[in-house]
């Protein structure tokens, strides 16, 4: 149980947090044939673009309404209209996802109104999906922007049914929070399909940002969930919401189409995955397949083998709420102590987190609280703090720009949990200090006891050797 506090500082130093609009943009990147657009000045997009390119090492589709000084003052109707027309002409997307930014929110652009006007003016583009989400930079964080965009995708593309439609029980919707990597989504798909279920992921970054080489050049997203599939989500038997952040989207889906949902606040750790697997077994009516049983056994074994290295280890974590909750809770279950937890935005999970305090703050706060931590876990920007602290850094979350394969890190499922134990346990093993002759020599001034050393020279009597 943690006391949730907000940093009182005026000045954020070494930010942990990233902005809402690019969170929204990432969600749109998991939709097929989509072009995410930030409604703001072009710098808003370019910073986001660079961040994603460095993290995923992929071409990133991300456009801008390129608000200039005049448009910013007078309103962005023209820019919205022009950007949509240009994007259609150049990229021919099926969906355009628009996120507002600090600039346009400060001015107070009524983008919903603009889009109504646009629809009237351009009946020829009636088939184009346009989703707008309000994501001011000056409020909330990356995770919130992502969650809001997913909710808007549901509201925009899932029809509202007066009476719930006929369900296809083998179909399940999976609302995948932004703490899941493309690798995580692949892993979950694998687990869910084990039970004969057909999952539809929203969003589905595993199709778009999994680092595959596309057949031909596409200016939009390379893959992801199609608009048509989103439209069918109302007919699924269940919705699995992965991450507390997906609750609003799940509620929206239930309200529109009567699809019941189950929320899994984390899928890292043994009990968490047991609950997930039990649920899948229940809704599919199938027993857990041998493959998963073996994976569970491997995780238990990894926990037993690994706990020696985690016991009483002091870990400082900085991550967005759902990622913090997933990984931090599991590390605690492995015996580690979370000595510092810093996150980006509020969440009902924070108060339940297994540390004394969860601070909504920055990496400077994390660094100050990390003290003598054995390990720092945060995104790649933690590297400077880790260096100053002399502690190893385990890179977790976005952005991870100085390591390969960030998109394929898997921390969910029995397998992902097992791999996380190995990755972090190996850091501890590598850090194990070597003892030396001075390791246990006491300085007695510190604990109030007396040093009884007798001066040396009188003791050493040189004797002739026979």
């Amino acid at each position, binding site marked *: 149980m943690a006391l949730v506090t907000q940093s009182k500082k005026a000045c954020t130093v070494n930010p942990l947090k990233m902005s809402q609009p690019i969170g929204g943009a990432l969600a749109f990147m998991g939709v097929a044939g989509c072009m995410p657009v930030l409604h703001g000045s072009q710098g808003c997009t370019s910073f986001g673009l660079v961040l994603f390119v460095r993290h995923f090492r992929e071409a990133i589709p991300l456009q801008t309404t390129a608000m200039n000084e005049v448009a910013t003052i007078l309103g962005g109707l023209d820019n919205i209209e022009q950007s949509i027309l240009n994007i259609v002409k150049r990229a021919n997307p099926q969906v355009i996802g628009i996120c507002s930014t600090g600039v346009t929110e400060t001015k107070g652009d009524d983008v919903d109104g603009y889009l109504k006007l646009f629809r009237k003016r351009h009946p020829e583009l009636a088939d184009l999906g346009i989703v707008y989400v309000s994501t001011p930079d000056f409020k909330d964080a990356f995770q919130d922007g992502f969650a809001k965009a997913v909710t808007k995708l549901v509201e925009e593309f899932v029809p509202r049914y007066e009476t719930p439609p006929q369900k296809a029980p083998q179909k399940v919707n999976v609302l995948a929070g932004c703490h899941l990597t493309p690798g995580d989504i692949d892993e979950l798909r694998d687990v869910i399909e084990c039970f004969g279920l057909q999952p539809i992921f929203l969003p589905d970054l595993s199709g778009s940002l999994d680092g595959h080489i596309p057949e031909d050049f596409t200016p939009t997203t390379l893959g992801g969930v199609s608009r048509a599939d989103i439209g069918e989500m109302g007919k699924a038997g269940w919705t699995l919401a992965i991450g507390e952040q997906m609750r609003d989207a799940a509620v929206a889906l239930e309200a529109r189409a009567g699809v019941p949902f189950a929320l899994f606040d984390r899928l890292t*750790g*043994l*009990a968490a995955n*047991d*609950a997930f*697997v*039990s649920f899948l*077994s229940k809704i599919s009516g199938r*027993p*857990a397949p041998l493959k998963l*049983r073996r994976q*569970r056994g491997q995780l*238990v*074994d990894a*926990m*037993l*083998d690994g*706990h*020696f290295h*985690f*016991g*009483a280890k002091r870990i400082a974590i900085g991550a967005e709420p759902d990622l913090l909750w997933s990984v931090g809770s599991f590390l*605690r*279950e*492995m*015996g580690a102590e979370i000595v510092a937890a810093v996150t980006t935005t509020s969440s009902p999970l924070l108060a339940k987190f297994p540390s004394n305090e969860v601070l909504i703050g920055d990496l400077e706060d994390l660094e100050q609280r990390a003290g003598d931590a054995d390990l720092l876990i945060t995104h790649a920007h933690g590297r400077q703090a880790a260096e100053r602290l002399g502690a190893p850094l385990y890179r977790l979350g976005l952005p991870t720009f100085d390591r390969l394969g960030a998109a394929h890190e898997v921390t969910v499922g029995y397998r992902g949990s097992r791999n996380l134990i190995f990755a972090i346990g190996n850091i501890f093993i590598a850090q*194990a200090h*070597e*003892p*030396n*002759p*001075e*390791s*246990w*020599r*006491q300085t007695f001034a510190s*604990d109030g*006891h*007396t*040093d*009884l*050393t*007798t001066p*040396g020279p009188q*003791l*050493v*009597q*040189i*004797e002739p*050797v026979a």
Partner: protein
Amino acid sequence: MTTLANKIQDVFNEPGCGKNQGKSEKERKKGCTKQLAPGAAAGGCAFDGAKIALQPITDVAHLVHGPIACEGNSWDNRGAKSSDSSLYRTGFTTDIGENDVVFGGEKRLFKSIKEIVDKYDPPAVFVYQTCVPAMTGDDIEAVCKAAAAKFNKPVVPVISPGFVGPKNLGNKLAGEAILDYVIGTMEPEYTTPYDINIIGEYNLAGELWQVKPLLDELGIRILACISGDAKYREVASSHRARAAMMVCSKAMINVARKMEERYGIPFFEGSFYGIGDMSDSLREISRLLIERGAPQELMARTEAVIAREEVRAWERIAPYTARLTGKRVLLITGGVKSWSVVAALQEAGMEIAGTSVKKSTKEDKERIKELMGQDAHMIDDMTPREMYKMLKEARADIMLSGGRSQFVALKAKMPWLDINQERHHAYAGYEGMVELVAEIDKALSNPVWAQVRLPAPWEETSWEERATKAIEAEAASLAADPEKAEAHRRARKICSCRDVSLGAIEDAIASKNLDSVAAVGAELGAGTGCGGCQEKIAAILGEKAGAGAIPASIAA
């Protein structure tokens, strides 16, 4: 008789070994090692034992003459720490091939020594004999002698091929090698009345350094530690010490005793494990040094350090004692440390649920009994299933053992702590005891146990439950059927070497009026193998004498 056979006989004749003195001439010839049972043996060979004993000498090149298995499969896997050279961790082996087996590997060995001398120039090269060259007849001693002369450097043959016996024998053969070739071959730069040797301490995980600062504080100099963090020169000039402490049970008793015999260095057997033992060891060191001429005032200073350290240790253990009091520990380890660890754990408020005496000497067993009183529940050759049963019945909260038996505890999802030589934590001295208690507390309080004990969602019954049911069913069937229970009781094996059951012994005692262990041995062979079951036979004889000749069950 070959030199090796002589050497082994010599080692077996060890007069310093209490157990040995209790044996008849005939028994002594058989040696002090249990006959290894094919298919049921676990543990290292004599080569392993020799390497363990000598490898901690840090600046020496340890060259293993044999096929790749002996060094290739085992190198740099022991936790002996060095304050200086890391040459001892470099794996040197002749890696002999078919040609060497057919034509002999002496040339390859000689060349290997040359290469080591050329490239590393160590103060000495230790050459370890292994099984294959021992079989093909490579004359290691001759090669070493030639190499020593040629390179003007000590080249020490360590004759301990794996097949001659277990690790413990290898420890002693290693001791013989340094007695013959190293100790007494150099002189120290100077000596003091405070010079001691510590024999049988390997500085695992740096344990010597948990003790050394206190000796430094008292002005006591470790002239040589044999062999933890030792340099060749120190071992070679160790014959000038005034006194010696022999650590680690009987592993290197031959070194301690022969150094007493040859150089007049008195020794005592002590332990650095446990607060009381540590204090006793410091006192003994001072007492022996004073006997050998050190000033009397040393004892007062020793007592002052002991008093301070005991207070400090208790202060630091106190925060854990509340949580650990009443916790039950199952201790499965070689004889080496059983009794000393027992004392230490009791100091922290814990109870001993049981302890193995697999490798303990009779004397070790006595000490365990003395320390644990009536509660002694020693477990001889416990099978994994028995260990599991014991853990499962919550008679133990944690198991302390060597690396190999850990998986029984872990698969039973019980906390476990490594206390044998592969361990990473140092548990010696006052510092080490605080560390041990902290580690036990850490293991017991880890929330992982609650997690891993969760049943799998698809499991209606776990294997633990099935095992428990099977155990209960067996107990119930025995309780319901006295005949079966009696048969079960009588079927208990007493002598593993000669495969003699309790029933056979009871019948023989009853029908032939046997009244001594020797008589039982003559009749059935029981107790004439390794001798480990003689105590049990004596107990059966005692019981029969008390209850009358006819077993109650048969009379009824």
